[in-house]
């Protein structure tokens, strides 16, 4: 399958007005100096393997640049000067305040806003829209603030615990749920923060964006894929909790920790990825059917 079939935009190159080379070069140099610290801190987080939550950036960022390269520069250049200035001023303001308050997420987001400002000035709105996917991927590559992670983790832990306990009950194993502690005969299973499923949820959302951009063409199908990725991740994580309890009860208490638990986690992760791929395929099929229906010749109807 070639890139065109995958929905990847075909590379188009346009020549930038030579008079803009020097202003662009100067602006890029200043941008690099201004954002050297946020960029360094971002790469440092991506490569901090003690915190695997941030590591997806190592995959997403190169992909973003590759997609930007593949898309290339549009031929029609109509700079959006007012919007560009607004973006650049906003980026500077956020960069300044976020630095003062040591707020990493907004500091990093300001880098994207600044980049968008430069694109708007030198290439125009159409170029920014053409590079939506690289921008979305770079946005996803920015680790969520700890506060947001903490806020999301607790409810996800409880949901996963509830789903797990319901499935255990369904299999006629006596179970008592106390917050995120699942009690089965002889064992207390603690659904820890790491089991909240947030990591698999973010991974599935990232994959949903990639699959949506590469395979699907319609906004509704791309959004559907993203929306479906959320309950899928939650349900599969709940099933993982059930599987752990099932194995602990029937096989060995060691299934609740260590190598077996990790392997089981990876297995569920692969299943989640495959499931999302399957959903994307169904959406692709529906899109195909709709396209075929749209192209079908109008049948003569005999009203006779």
């Amino acid at each position, binding site marked *: 399958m070639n890139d065109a079939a995958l929905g990847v935009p075909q590379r188009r190159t346009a020549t930038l007005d030579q008079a803009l080379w020097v202003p662009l070069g100067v602006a890029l140099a200043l941008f690099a100096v*201004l954002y050297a610290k946020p960029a360094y801190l971002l790469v440092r987080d991506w490569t901090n393997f003690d915190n695997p939550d941030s590591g997806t950036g190592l995959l997403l960022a190169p992909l973003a640049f590759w997609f930007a390269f593949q898309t290339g520069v549009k031929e029609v250049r109509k700079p959006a000067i007012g919007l560009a200035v607004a973006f650049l*001023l906003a*980026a*500077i303001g956020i960069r*300044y305040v976020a630095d*003062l*308050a*040591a707020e990493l997420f907004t500091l990093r987001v300001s880098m994207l806003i600044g980049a968008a400002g430069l694109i708007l*000035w*030198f290439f125009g709105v159409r170029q920014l829209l053409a590079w939506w996917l690289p921008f979305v991927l770079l946005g996803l590559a920015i680790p969520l603030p700890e506060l947001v992670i903490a806020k999301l983790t607790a409810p996800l832990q409880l949901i996963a615990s509830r789903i797990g306990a319901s499935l255990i009950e369904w299999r006629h194993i006596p179970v008592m749920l106390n917050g995120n502690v699942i009690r089965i005969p002889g064992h207390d299973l603690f659904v820890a923060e790491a089991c909240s499923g947030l990591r698999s949820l973010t991974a599935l959302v990232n994959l949903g964006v990639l699959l949506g951009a590469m395979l699907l063409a319609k906004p509704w199908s791309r959004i559907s894929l993203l929306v479906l990725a959320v309950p899928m991740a939650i349900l599969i994580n709940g099933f993982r909790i059930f599987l752990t309890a099932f194995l602990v009860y029937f096989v060995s208490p060691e299934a609740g920790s260590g190598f077996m638990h990790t392997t089981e986690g990876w297995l569920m992760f692969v299943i989640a990825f495959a499931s999302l791929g399957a959903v994307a395929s169904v959406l692709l099929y529906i899109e195909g059917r709709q396209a075929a229906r749209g192209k079908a010749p109008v049948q003569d109807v005999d009203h006779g």
Partner: protein
Amino acid sequence: MAELTRFVPAVILAAGLGLLGLTHDQVRPTPVRPIASILDTVAGFDTKQLEVDSSSRRVAGMDEYVNRVFLRDTNYVFSLYVGYYTYQTQGKSIHSPRNCLPGAGWEPVESAVLPIASAPGIGSRDMNKYILANQGAYAAVYYWYQGRGRIESNEYTVKYNLMRDAALYGRTEEALVRLVIPLDTRGDRSQEVIRREITRADSIATSLAPRLAREVSAALPPAPQG
């Protein structure tokens, strides 16, 4: 596009660099009274000072702190930590106990927000409460952020105020105030015993918090004017 207007983005970015140069001119107010003097005695309790080792201090980044255990008949009843930061910047800022405490096997199982009665200053004047569990052991943690005239429990509001005050007054000094109360379940993990112990911990925290907030307020620099 006129020759010079092409350089507008470069001019804006250069202005941004200039603005960043001002970041280092932040005010770094020191406490009015030593942080170690906060809640130095509580009637009916013996106290024991705990040192934070140098590597943990470097990671936490606080400029002054008090870390004190309160004992009754040699039994650990509760502990107090107040960490004060004269200024906050990248690599030197208050870490939320919500993210730091659940290390070493401790996991939050319950959370709530409790009011601090007759607390001084402005802000929500609430404290966060977390019940943590670790292999059958439980502890209640109560904490809030205090500084620049505010007492705040909501960490988003804390961040917003930090950015606002940094931009308006060049001030980011703040203290994290934290009480930890172990729940004495004696191995009994029944709901009844845990609930009873949480109620006891709440009672200790809510009775101490107003005095603690006032003493912290008296030790910290006055709120910025304007």
